[in-house]
């Protein structure tokens, strides 16, 4: 059995699955249920000055009959009094001393407010703080949340204020609502943060009601931009995580990965791209806390299969595999192959290739079933046919190198090799 326990800045958790700062971590009852279900840690919903929420608060994007492919919210930080939250945190920490308890914070944008908030929260028994520099709605208008994370200078300043007082590890949570997360990540590291977490939610409009013409979520005939998360944002989160993992400054500190993590596979991908732990919210809000069981079992089985004994054996292993386009091997070429025994003659590969790609699939009309084969000389190896094929392993990509040697774009230009092969 692999060891899936996690050590994040000395904060130990039995597994790398934490619940992100969000509605599921707002109260004693939720967090106790989460820990009973087996979650390795939680980031308690952001504490700060007293706020008031509206109704409704969530909306989602369904796709192909599947609900909650994407999810957004317009909820603010915890709207419960600070002292109640702190009392409950203390209680939970006593009940579950082996779990990671991080408290998310967001203070008014001045040094004293941050100092006061940290001093109030230090005694709650939490093992670390997470600075909410990412909340994209409600708080930004007050100069907080993403308003901080979107400006590296301000972010650095706030981190410095925090580090003056904090005696427990500090994680800075980054907003994705920027052209690159790296400047803020660097600024936070330079300001002294002990770790980073990313991504927060992405500003969004999930849809418009075609009867009322009011976008979602609906609040008395109006809506606002909400923070988008869930499976839909995972690819964006992975990209941003990679840019942090590849940056020499930002990568000095550990990262907690967030953004559409729904399964153990998603978690492994985040970890391969540099995350030490992962944080989950939408998947739990869709299915409840029980999903952590399979996350632990799946991770364990995968690690056993691959021979990894502990998570640090594979964390970050894929970071170096994302390179620059101009370093890719131009002589690498692969060609689609349709396994005729597996083909169900749905024609999806054909019409995708014919209408939108490279006209590289032959059709031999039949009644009722057509036969489809690859025009090998036309195929550019784009993968589209394989991606749309509903049968697993029916279309495979077979390697046919153009030449044995590695040649990248820079070499190609330097050697004056021909550009146009049409």
């Amino acid at each position, binding site marked *: 059995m692999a060891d899936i326990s996690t050590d994040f800045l000395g904060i130990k958790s039995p597994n790398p699955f934490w619940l992100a700062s969000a509605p599921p971590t707002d109260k004693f009852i939720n967090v106790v249920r989460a820990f009973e279900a087996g979650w390795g840690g939680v980031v308690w919903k952001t504490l700060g000055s007293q706020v008031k929420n509206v109704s409704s608060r969530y909306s989602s994007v369904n796709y192909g009959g599947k609900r909650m492919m994407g999810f957004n919210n317009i909820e603010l930080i915890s709207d419960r009094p600070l002292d109640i939250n702190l009392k409950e945190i203390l209680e939970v920490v006593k009940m579950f001393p082996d779990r990671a308890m991080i408290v998310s914070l967001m203070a008014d944008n001045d040094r004293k407010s941050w100092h006061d908030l940290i001093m109030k929260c230090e005694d709650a028994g939490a093992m670390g703080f997470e600075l909410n520099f990412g909340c994209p709605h409600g708080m930004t208008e007050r100069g907080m949340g993403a308003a901080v994370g979107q400006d590296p200078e301000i972010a650095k300043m706030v981190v410095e204020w925090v580090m003056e007082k904090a005696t427990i590890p500090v994680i800075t949570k980054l907003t994705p609502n920027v052209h690159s997360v790296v400047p803020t990540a660097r600024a936070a590291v330079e300001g002294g943060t002990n770790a980073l977490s990313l991504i927060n939610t992405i500003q969004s409009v999930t849809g418009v009601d075609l009867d009322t013409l009011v976008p979602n979520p609906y609040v008395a005939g109006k809506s606002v931009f909400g923070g988008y998360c869930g499976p839909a944002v995972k690819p964006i989160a992975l990209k941003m995580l990679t840019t942090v993992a590849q940056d020499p400054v930002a990568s000095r500190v550990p990262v907690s990965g967030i953004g559409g993590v729904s399964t153990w596979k998603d978690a492994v991908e985040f970890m391969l791209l540099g995350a030490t732990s992962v944080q989950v919210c939408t998947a739990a809000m869709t299915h409840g806390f029980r999903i952590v069981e399979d996350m632990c079992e799946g991770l364990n089985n995968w690690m056993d299969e691959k021979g990894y004994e502990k998570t640090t054996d594979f964390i970050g292993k894929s970071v170096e595999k994302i390179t620059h386009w101009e370093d890719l091997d131009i002589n690498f070429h692969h060609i689609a192959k349709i396994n005729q025994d597996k083909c*169900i003659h*749905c*024609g*999806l590969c054909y019409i995708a290739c014919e209408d939108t790609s490279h006209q590289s699939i032959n059709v031999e*009309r039949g009644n*009722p079933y*057509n036969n489809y084969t690859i025009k090998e000389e036309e195929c550019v190896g784009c993968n589209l046919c394989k991606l749309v094929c509903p049968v697993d392993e029916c279309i495979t990509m077979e390697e046919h190198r153009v030449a044995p040697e590695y040649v990248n774009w820079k070499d190609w230009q330097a050697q004056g090799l021909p550009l146009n092969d049409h």
Partner: protein
Amino acid sequence: MSIKNNRLTTAEYEENFTDIHPPFETPDAALVEANRCLFCYDPPCMKSCPTSINVPKFIKQIATENLKGSAHTIFSSNIMGAGCSKVCPVEKLCEGACVYNLMHETPIHIAKLQRYSTEKAMDNNWQLFERKPSTGKRVAIIGAGPAGLSCAHTLSREGIDVTIYEKESKGGGLMTYGIAAYKVTPEFCEDEVNYITSIGGIDIKYNQELGKNVTVEELKRNYDAVYLAFGVGLARQLDIAGEHLEGVEDAIKFIYELRNNDYSKIAVGDKVAVIGMGMTAIDAATQAKRLGASDVTLVYRRTQDEMPCTEHELNIAKLDGCKIIWLAAPKEIKGDNGKVSQLVCDVMKLGDPDESGRRSPVVSGETFTLEVDMVIKAAGQMPFETLVKNNSFENNKGKVAVTDKALTNQEGVFAGGDCVNGGREVVDAVQAGKDGAAAIVKYLFGQDYILDCELKPTFNN
């Protein structure tokens, strides 16, 4: 043993004749199924539909909640799409061709989805087609069955005024009179006829029989063209001794009575033999059982490999408790006081292939006897040979002979459906009606004229 009616309670009749293919209970259920469709290109389901309904398109339209579009897609190809969703042997047509079968997965429930869209359209009386301005042309159609109605609707869309002469008092043809009551109700059939004719320009004259109330000659004189869609007649004779005995029934007549009367009024034997293994034989056998017969046996002279009905239909009969005897041909019906008491059958064996390519059954010399009080004949239907010949139509064993899908040997007279093909599915008749209408329109307006229904419903190159 005797033939009698009123064998069951009202509740039992109701339960036995309830819809065998219930609809989706909720829109969500339809959505889940619609989203399962892969949206194939040049789809095998569409190619397997005699009317070429663009199945993936209409299913996609259910998934996008464009139900009006979905119903339009269906009705554009098949104006009886609602009825077909209930009576089509989809297991050998669209659903049988669904690529999920090749993955050993349950095929998409196409018929059920089609019913979902078309029922919505009928319930809301969505008018999905607009008549072109009147052309002043008038066409007479004989028979308000699937072929006649389909032809009429297609012609009406082109601005042609249609008069249908129907010998029964209701439209729908075999849909109304010849199909098991647990598949379609009389009310549905009536609604469907009304929905089809609601486009306007179609006048159905009921209780008007060709040769009795109206003649081909007079129609040719009074209309710009005539379309024959009078279907087929009674069941094929067995030509064996005892066929005249009381208790020997014609399956078509049996089902006709059943569809026209209260179930409790329909007399059925206690022990019933049904001759044949086509769809009508199955419908007769299962309904005899559902009317309260204690013992129903289907007798077929060939084997399961050659049977005309689908396996799905056979299973309905089996689940109803009908017995099946393969390789048995009726030899003689014996009676007692003029009433059926026994059916004597030859045991058959398979010989060389016949003209249909199927191995033909030959007498083995052995016989067996079934104790029965009712024999239902369902070994194919007879064309209206006399009617066809009396009107000087070229014929093919009594069926109207046509060239180019719909042209008879008489100018301005066209034909299609069962009276031409000898008796096939409703969906085949609908396509025949479309073909007939196309031929008529081109005859009236020129060969280059393109009908609305000929415009490709989708880009499928």
